[in-house]
């Protein structure tokens, strides 16, 4: 950065540790006991004081506590919007991932030579670091939600394709032959015999892909579309404990809820699996 002694504040991402932490930490880390005096001290231009914001407050927000009710009440709308964006990004990317993974898995099942390249390709995609992935896709998508969705779709592929393929391959050859014997064509065989039997493995893959998408959405914060990640990212930059904790907990809750939901769906659509276990 020629011509600037500043390490990072105005050149964020310049390699320095998040510079703002200093300023914020100065306020936050000094802790509650020593700060009380400052809270009561008059600020420099009291003539400009106006409204509730300018008076130095003494609440859990200003004390920077991990758990803070005032955070929840003042940020209700912000949190709601972030959760909605998080859910949308996750849902869209898993859905599109599934739509792409299904034909890939079927093709890989049908022709053995396709399987190798498809599995290798999707696995390689999975190893691209998420920051790099978003940077690589940036010229294609610009700063948009599409960028984040595209990245997440590519990540979900390896999990979905692998599990779909494992499910399809686990269908016993005798079953397939029996179906053919009954006069099933390839499409009917796929839809009525192979796919239902592949469901347990496929659903396992879908659950992992969904949970991993929930956590990966947060990286979208670098382009402003990261759902709860936006809050975690800005909270980390300013040592905002309540924000980081609340957003992280919500993230975990979304992941657990999504996983349970998919588990429920799996139980509903594969009643035979339950009958077996009983």
């Amino acid at each position, binding site marked *: 950065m*020629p011509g600037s002694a500043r390490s990072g504040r105005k050149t964020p991402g310049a390699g320095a540790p998040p510079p703002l932490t200093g*300023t914020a930490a100065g306020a936050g880390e000094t802790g509650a006991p020593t700060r009380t005096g400052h809270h009561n001290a008059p600020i420099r231009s009291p003539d400009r004081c106006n409204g509730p914001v300018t008076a130095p407050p003494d609440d859990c927000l200003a004390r920077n506590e991990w758990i803070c009710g005032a955070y929840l009440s003042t940020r209700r709308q912000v949190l709601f919007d972030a959760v909605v964006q998080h859910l949308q990004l996750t849902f869209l990317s898993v859905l599109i991932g599934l739509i792409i993974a299904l034909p890939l898995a079927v093709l890989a099942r049908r022709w053995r030579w396709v399987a190798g390249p498809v599995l290798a390709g999707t696995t390689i995609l999975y190893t691209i670091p998420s920051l790099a992935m978003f940077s690589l896709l940036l010229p294609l998508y610009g700063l948009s939600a599409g960028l984040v969705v595209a990245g997440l779709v590519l990540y979900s592929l390896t999990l979905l394709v692998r599990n779909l393929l494992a499910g399809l391959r686990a269908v016993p050859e005798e079953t397939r032959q029996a179906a053919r014997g009954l006069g099933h064509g390839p499409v009917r065989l796929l839809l009525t015999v192979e796919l239902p039997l592949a469901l347990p493995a496929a659903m396992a893959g879908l659950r992992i892909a969904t949970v991993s998408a929930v956590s990966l959405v947060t990286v979208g914060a670098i382009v402003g579309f990261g759902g709860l990640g936006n809050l975690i990212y800005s909270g980390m930059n300013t040592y905002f404990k309540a924000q980081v904790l609340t957003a992280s907990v919500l993230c975990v809750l979304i992941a657990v809820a999504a996983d349970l939901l998919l588990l429920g769906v799996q139980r509903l659509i594969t009643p035979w699996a339950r009958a077996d276990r009983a």
Partner: protein
Amino acid sequence: MRGRTAAAAALLALTACTAGPSLENRGQVTASPGDSHHLTIGSAGFTESDLLAQIYAQLLNRAGYRTSILTVANRELYEPALESGRIDVVPEYAATFADWLNAKTHGADAKPVGSPDLDATMKALRTLAAPRGLTVLPPGRAVDQNAFAVSAGYARRHGLETLGDLGAAKLKVRLAAGDECVQRPYCAPGLKKVYGIDITGVDPKGVGTTQAKRAVQDGRDQMVLTTTTDATLDLFGLVLLADDRHLQNADYVVPVVNRSRAGSERVARALGRLNGVLTTKDLARLNQQVDAWRRLPADVARTYLKDKGLLK
């Protein structure tokens, strides 16, 4: 191998149906100054940038624009978006942005164009920004530049108000700063050359970090490098020393707009109302309300603008 690349290409093509606008196809220099009804304001994701973005958004709202704010991690990401018109208005810092554009245009080794002289910096900045379809609006009074602080007791004992005083006092000074301070002309070398301050060493604790300020508070270091809009100095019993010989660059807050979407006189007038009002001290106070008191940038901005009569 061929199959693998083909598969990857197919995947990219498939997922590309959700594509947004390409980055290269808008914001031509030849286009006349545009006046889009909906404006996107970019924020670089740190507190001051968030605050300024909120202030701009609310001023533009008042002027009849619909606005939204997009927070992006860094300049490398938002500057191209500003050129393309994905983002229309961004709060910037004159000298830093001039140097950044200069490095982007002429390579990383180009001679810096930002300087302590505001007029020269603005001229250089506008020359660099115009070919990219960007218009730099006039700067106001607020400056966020590097600044040096000492403990209040130390300043009192040695009668220090300016960096010039510190140089004249012939004190040995250990400086808490980023490790790059050793080479930067605006840091250790400049302090020695311009002010004659005897810098015995640079304690690499980062720019304005808690550790750096603590070190000065405890007397382990004598001076700390921070910024003019740092509002937490009081908490550490620190005072700023004035840059009386103008060592620091003119990092005045300036709005930069995409000319073809927000280049109108109306936008300039709406944002210009802030210029005579917002001071460096105001900015520090606003930063404090967000960083230390954890108020929402939108609320802090609104209260400030109402307070100043810029918003009803």
